[in-house]
């Protein structure tokens, strides 16, 4: 599904990613771990198409299609979803209206009619329930005044609504207490299928107790320095990152 070959990326002449190779197949969960500043969030942003970064070498393929010339929205239309570490507040636009707009823009781009209001409503209800989200929450302005946990839950709610092929969850566990973490993890697990893939970006292995990865990769100084199974995460937790440098 996702194939990253020798990816180099920089921002304002500062090299951040220095040759990433990654292959994620449908149905798989990959975790990317690493210390602060290793390039985890940059990798997430580059896959999602953030224009501040310049890809200087290598490529990213989604289902064999090169993403290079695609704008962030076009990548979203093709099934890429990025859950933000710091979701942005948008006053005056409710959660419901925002997600409606997002869904219908994707449908439009893929040559479908807008989703009928009734179906939209039903879907919203269903997914809100999955993530234990109160109906009142949906008519609040997007992320405005939300707690850290509410913001993250709302990100996964949007993921549930958009049904992406590839979900990249950037530090989704940060700022969550254990109960919220369980709800979010449970949501992600329920959305997982043989047709989609998840990339978890995290600093700690805590999240991986609830969303069990098939593969764990360690990112250091812009390169994947070690890959392994889920046991690698435990090893990292015990030994820290220093032994890999």
């Amino acid at each position, binding site marked *: 599904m996702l194939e990253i070959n020798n990816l180099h990326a920089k921002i304002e002449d500062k090299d951040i990613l220095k040759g990433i190779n990654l292959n994620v197949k449908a149905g798989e969960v990959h975790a990317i771990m690493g210390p602060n500043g290793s390039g985890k969030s940059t990798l997430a942003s580059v896959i999602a198409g953030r224009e501040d970064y310049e890809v200087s070498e290598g490529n990213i393929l989604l289902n064999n299609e090169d993403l290079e010339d695609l704008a962030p929205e076009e*990548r*979203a239309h093709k099934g890429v979803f990025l859950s933000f570490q710091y979701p942005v507040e948008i006053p005056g636009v409710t959660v419901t209206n925002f997600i409606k707009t997002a869904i219908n823009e994707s449908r439009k781009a893929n040559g479908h009619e807008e989703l009928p209001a009734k179906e939209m409503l039903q879907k919203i209800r269903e997914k809100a329930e999955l993530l234990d989200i109160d109906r009142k929450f949906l008519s609040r302005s997007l992320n405005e005044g939300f707690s850290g946990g509410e913001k993250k839950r709302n990100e996964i709610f949007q993921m549930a609504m958009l049904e992406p092929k590839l979900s990249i969850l950037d530090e989704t566990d940060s700022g969550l207490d254990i109960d919220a973490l369980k709800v979010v993890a449970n949501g992600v697990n329920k959305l997982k299928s043989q047709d989609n893939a998840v990339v978890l970006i995290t600093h700690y292995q805590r999240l991986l107790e609830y969303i069990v990865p098939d593969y764990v990769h360690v990112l250091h100084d812009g390169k994947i320095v070690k890959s392994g199974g889920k046991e690698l995460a435990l090893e990292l937790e015990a030994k820290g990152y220093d032994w890999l440098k």
Partner: protein
Amino acid sequence: MELKEKLVASFLAFENKVSVDTDTNVHDIRSNAFDHFEQHGFPSKKDEEWKYTSLKSILKYDYNVFPEAETAIEFATVKKYFLHEIDSYKIVFIDGVYSSFLSETSHEGYDICLLSAALKQPKYKPVVDHFFNTIAGKDNSITSLNTAFSKEGAYINIPKGTVVPKPIQIVHFSTGNEAELLLQPRNLIVVGENSHVQIIERHQSLSSNVVLTNSVTEIFANKKAIVDYYKIQNDEKSASLIDSTYVQQQQHSHVSVNTFSFGGNLTRNNLEFFQEGEHIDSTLNGITIIGDKQLVDNHTLVMHKHPNCESHELYKGIYFDKSTGVFNGKVIVEKEAQKTNAFQQNNNILIDDGATINAKPQLEIFADDVKCSHGCTIGQLDSDALFYMRSRGIPKREANGLLLYAFANDALEKIKIPELKTRITKLIAKKLGVDLGFDL
């Protein structure tokens, strides 16, 4: 002949024509105002209050000062300029002349009618003598010009304890019958103790001919009165507006003036609040969205003269192309005015490189036990927010629009007439060039 000379020369002829107010002191007021204007003329950029706004380009025309021709307009052709979704009183003028056909006035329980009628009839004399031109800026030559020449506008007098059940719309149309037209409407609004009124004001040109409107409004809010005033400025690019609105409030009154500036060539809003009692609440809201070479200048003043009063000021501006914005917000807290809460906020977004904003918050505080704050920001669209929305599949253009809408939103929230709020929201969406994809 320059515009000033032309106006001076025509004043005598005008006075003879409006011999209507000879039996009140209005005649003296006019003469004094005329003298003031003759002495000072139009302000120039040398004047501190006009440093960023030059009138030169709009004073060069050979304006017709006394349009006479009465023009009929079918309601259907101008319906869209009214808030027609709800029932309302209407005071409508076409090229400065009252249109009884389009208007719906009232004398039952309150007076919602014409200033010309109020100036003519003896029964209104006590109110006119008591209020007319008592708070309008006497050292402002543009207001003096209006005072000297104005003969028509809205006269609204609401006696005490009265809630006017529907909004009042004051609409000025210019038809383009004159190649270049100068309009000088004058409104006098007196709201009695415990009374409540909502007013919507609009100036609309129906052609691409040049129009300059020099409008003056005086609003008097008695004890515990509530006045909500909305100004919709979405005129043609050949139309300019100088609006001067003066508000005097008595104790426990609440007055809000909301100014939506989305169009026109040059728009200058002078808005001045004078608090004359305790526990007064004054609200000033503005949203400006302009492009091309348009200019909107919001000059506000809040005079806190008594203790325990509040003022809330929020102006948002979005500037495209080579447009120019000016914000000058003066708040004066006099020595007597202890326990004042005065808040002022002015946020601006410059979209294009050629856009300019001149922002000047001006707080003069002479009391020591007050809470005053002001914030002024000038920025561009938040690139994090933009990426966030695009990553969810919302195209750049729509994402821009949503973000700008979100930026203006808190000033929109203050609109108390739901249908008006919907209208303004739609105007904003249109102005931002986006279909927001849902009913806001």
